[in-house]
């Protein structure tokens, strides 16, 4: 069934009992034309673009848990494309442009809300850096501007601007096209769209190892049996090293915990996404009314997908420092995802030392915003065997050739 106003009215009037299941529960077959490892946003998008852009109609996604249960379900739902270097800006803005049209493309409301994404400016150095970045963005053809403290106070009346805050607000960098998306809708929308094009989504199917012949993967051994394919793709974020170890190559990745939390639902009080480099926290309000808050990375290597009290304390005290009215608010949930940190804070996309295995990893703390582009690029690599022009700078070989794309300076927060 196509989702539309008429289907909404028709089902609404008949007790909402006529909605069909959005995608099939597939059983693994022995052989596919392509296998995507990882059923998060990037993996689901990869399978969708393999089917849509490259005509693959016999594709499997294998996921060890449930789709969208990893970082796709654990992020703070922010999207933006204010990256500094031309190659990064081109890739991230391509992603945002795909997101801007995704609802129509996959016939699923992803609840894209381009409410404005702002980084507060607390001192003259940050003001200089923000101007520098805004100039870069202008050259890259991406929107971004500097606004003054009065405008910040007008946009966020509850923000402590005048009450002698610990970190004074001099203004903000604002990307108006930035904002939030309903994260589960991205997973579910891509899953439904891929399923309709014939993709098998296989959950509870963990990779146990690879069968290799002559430097290529012949088949993958999974907890649900052996699956053959001529080409494989991996989009497993924090677990990239685990898969790479089985395939027999090294990655410059360290896995770390990134935590986030939500408050109880409140009436609308924060219309934008705000990030403070001073307090090290970022906050936005969901359409349900919860405040979503995130902080810095746990600064040690971890695969533990759970939060810790020191981070809750840091994030909550920072949020109250910025918005004193939040002091009486209660937290509802907190959680963590395992992100894949790379030395230059840029993704690793394209070929691997294994001839028919292609990779999409290294998005680190910013993978959600990159889902459409990450999927599109991995699908391109798997279908053609070549790197798309937008990812030529982002190959795994850049560490050997020492041509890093050091985006650390352009990240939203100093992780």
């Amino acid at each position: 069934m196509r989702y539309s106003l008429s289907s909404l009215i028709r089902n609404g009037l008949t007790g909402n009992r006529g909605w069909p299941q959005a995608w099939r529960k597939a059983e693994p077959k022995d052989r596919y034309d392509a296998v995507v490892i990882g059923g998060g946003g990037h993996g689901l998008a990869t399978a969708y673009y393999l089917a849509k852009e490259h005509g693959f109609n016999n594709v499997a996604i294998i996921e060890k848990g449930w789709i969208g249960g990893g970082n796709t379900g654990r992020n703070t739902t922010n999207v933006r494309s204010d990256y500094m270097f031309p190659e990064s800006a081109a890739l991230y803005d391509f992603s945002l442009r795909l997101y801007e049209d995704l609802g129509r493309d996959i016939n699923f409301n992803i609840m894209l809300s381009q409410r404005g994404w702002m980084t507060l400016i607390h001192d003259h150095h940050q003001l200089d850096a923000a101007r520098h970045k805004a100039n870069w963005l202008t050259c890259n053809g991406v929107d971004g501007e500097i606004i003054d403290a009065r405008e910040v106070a007008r946009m966020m009346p509850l923000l402590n601007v005048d009450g002698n805050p610990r970190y004074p607000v001099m203004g903000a960098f604002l990307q108006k096209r930035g904002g939030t998306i309903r994260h589960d809708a991205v997973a579910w929308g891509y899953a439904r769209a891929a399923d309709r094009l014939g993709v098998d989504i296989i959950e509870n199917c963990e990779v146990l190892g690879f069968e290799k012949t002559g430097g290529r993967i012949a088949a993958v051994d999974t907890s649900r049996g052996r699956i053959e394919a001529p080409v494989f793709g991996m989009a497993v974020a924090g677990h990239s090293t685990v898969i790479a170890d089985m395939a027999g190559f090294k990655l410059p990745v360290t896995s770390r915990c990134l935590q986030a939390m939500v408050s109880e639902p409140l009436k609308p009080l924060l219309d934008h996404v705000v990030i403070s480099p001073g307090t090290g926290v970022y906050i936005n309000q969901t359409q349900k009314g919860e405040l979503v808050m995130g902080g810095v990375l746990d600064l040690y290597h971890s695969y533990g997908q759970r939060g810790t009290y020191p981070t809750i304390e840091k994030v909550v005290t920072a949020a109250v420092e910025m918005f004193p009215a939040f002091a009486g608010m209660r937290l509802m949930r907190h959680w963590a995802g395992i992100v894949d940190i790379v030395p230059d804070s840029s993704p690793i996309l394209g070929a691997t030392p294994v001839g028919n295995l292609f990779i999409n990893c290294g998005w680190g703390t910013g993978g959600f915003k990159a889902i459409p582009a990450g999927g599109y690029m991995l699908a391109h690599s798997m279908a053609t065997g070549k790197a798309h022009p937008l990812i030529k700078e982002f190959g795994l070989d850049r560490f050997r050739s020492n041509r890093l794309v050091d985006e650390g300076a352009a990240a939203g927060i100093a992780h």
Partner: protein
Amino acid sequence: MIVIKCPSCHEDRHEEELEYGGEADVVRPTPPDGASDETWTDYLFMRTNTKGVHYEQWCCRAGCGQWFKVARHTVSHEVAEVIRYEDRFAYQKEGGE
């Protein structure tokens, strides 16, 4: 939360009192001119990133300031072993390792 007993001052330190120093035993290639580009790439960038028991370096930053080596499970954060570098070097001098 990670809690490690510092092997030098023998106090329990939690993660806010400690500084993480990354994977242990990442050794700079010697002689530098003789090492291949692949060896340098491995040394500079590639890490084991183990899911399981991982050997790593920690510093008792809020306490005695000593660096030491720890074997920690990266999912449960359980500490299996804490090693003083001084002891290890003494052991090596005796021709043990």
